[in-house]
């Protein structure tokens, strides 16, 4: 609070009116919802009758619910593949773009395109590309003597979905890393070059340590996105009965709440998802204290 305008007299009214929407958002949108979901997770409720106290039975039931365990494990597997995939590939693209080359603007635009466009629209074309007998990807594989693979069948669907999600997220990561990379003073590299450090040494000793704040930030963003991943997965793996070949946690919450009207179960699952995010953030902030270099 080093600087700030003091509201004068009736301006206090202005101040709080300007904050009212945000406070409503905290009450109804985020913090209030978190508490309400927590409360609901201890009840059985189908939205029509009255809620019935259920104690921790919804949580106990989750531990025995194979469909839910599958969904939770899928979310973890997905995140474990997706997060490093996005961080490494977007850092790589950013490092290459940060070399003094021509056409940086064009490359940046192209890599960013999937981030702008809707997952629904691009998933429609990915569905065609992944087609088993008719897709262009299998055609390309076969022309070099491989495949065909059933990209969206149970065996490979996870990999295929991770690929599309990474494809859709490289652009945003690239921008974060470019911002971090351009902030590194050029003279560091010049000094290192004078001392005889080669490109690899410069990358490992200068770039990597100084870009750790961006890696930290991008890992958190990617992980939060991974835990909530839904659009591509829904579009690529849903089956006619309304289920999915790669059900993830969000899919399971959605189905329980709005198809089966089991609000208690769905709330318990949402709370578990929130706990997962919480635990992950705790680990990340521990990691930040030990490994992230701030100038």
């Amino acid at each position, binding site marked *: *609070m080093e*600087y*700030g*305008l*003091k*509201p004068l007299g009736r*301006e206090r009214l*202005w*101040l709080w009116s*300007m904050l009212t*929407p*945000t406070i409503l*958002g905290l009450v109804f*949108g*985020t913090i209030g*919802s*978190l508490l*309400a*979901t927590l409360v609901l997770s201890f009840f059985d409720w189908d*939205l029509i009758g009255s809620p019935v106290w259920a104690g921790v039975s919804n949580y106990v039931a989750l531990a025995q619910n194979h469909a839910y365990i599958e969904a939770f494990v899928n979310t973890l597997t997905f995140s474990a593949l997706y997060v490093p995939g996005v961080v490494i590939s977007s850092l790589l693209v950013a490092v*290459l*773009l940060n*070399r003094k*080359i021509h056409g940086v603007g064009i490359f940046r635009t192209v*890599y*960013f*395109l999937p981030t*702008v466009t*809707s*997952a*629904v*629209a691009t998933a*429609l*074309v*990915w*569905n*065609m590309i992944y*087609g088993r007998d008719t897709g*262009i990807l299998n*055609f390309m594989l076969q022309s070099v003597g491989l495949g065909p693979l059933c990209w969206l069948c149970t065996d490979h669907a996870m990999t295929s979905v991770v690929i599309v999600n990474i*494809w859709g997220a490289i*652009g*945003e990561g690239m*921008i974060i890393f470019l*911002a971090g990379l351009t902030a590194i003073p050029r003279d560091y590299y010049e000094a290192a070059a004078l001392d005889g450090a080669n490109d690899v040494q410069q990358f490992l000793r200068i770039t990597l340590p100084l870009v750790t704040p961006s890696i930290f*930030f991008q890992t958190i963003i990617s992980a*939060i996105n991974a835990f909530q991943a*839904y*659009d591509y997965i829904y*579009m690529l793996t849903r089956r*006619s009965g309304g289920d999915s070949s790669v059900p993830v946690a969000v899919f399971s919450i*959605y189905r329980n*709440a*709005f198809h089966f009207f089991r609000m208690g179960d*769905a709330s318990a699952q*949402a*709370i578990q*998802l929130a706990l997962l*995010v919480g635990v992950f953030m705790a680990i990340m902030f521990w990691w930040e204290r030990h490994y992230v270099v*701030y100038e």
Partner: protein
Amino acid sequence: MKKSQYKALVDILTYVALGLGALTMLLPFLWMISVSLREPAQQYARDLIPNPFTLQNYVDLFEDLPNQAFPYLVFNSFKISLLAVIGQILTCAMAAFVFAIVKFRGRDFLFALLLATLMIPPQVSLIPNFIIFKYLHVIGTQWPLILPAFWGGAFGTFLLRQYFLTIPRDLVDAARMDGASLFDVFWRIYLPLSKPAVAALAIFAFKDSWNDLLHPLVYLPTDLHQTTLTVGLAFFQQQLQLGGKFTVLMAGAFLSIVPLLIIFFVAQRQFIEGIALSGVKR
């Protein structure tokens, strides 16, 4: 190897790697456009260049969707997204101004609380919000998609606050000397001076709302005249699973991304700077 030769070699490798990556990024879009310009009988053909070339799918799009729903879907998506943009700009800017400029007790606590909500997955709000909207009798209308845009948000508030902090304080002090109220300072100084950041937030809010799938699935009726483009396209795809004109679907997919492509090409700088700004730790 000489130093200049080494640099040339690394440059070539850089271009090759970036070029291959760029091709992977572009191919799905090229394929989408290519399929949308083919005769339906050619929908699975392997050539990128359509042969024969036709625009018929774009005409059929208005006929083939059940209830001739395409224009309705586009209208609904535009309406909801534009209202969401207005809501986000107004409410986030007001809060951001207060957090950046005004001094009052509890400010830092409230701001920290708001930032902490970034970690709460939106799915947690889904069920309580559904219940609130059910008691307000607005399930099946577009209100549940519009109202939440008017209660601020951590991302937009943070983004604008970061920008507001860069505006020189002398301006405020001078205006205060002249008797400007808090709201004057906000409305006449901060908002006009923050066009790039406001534009960035507008683009993000539009994009998120336009591309949203989960919330329209939950709240809107299955009636294709009242739902959004994303739900309409997902529904149309399901209809086609048993065999049908995917060429028309691709025409719809392409038209659905055109507004965002236009915004992106016009305001690319704001968009990219907005993301970079949100990644800056202060």
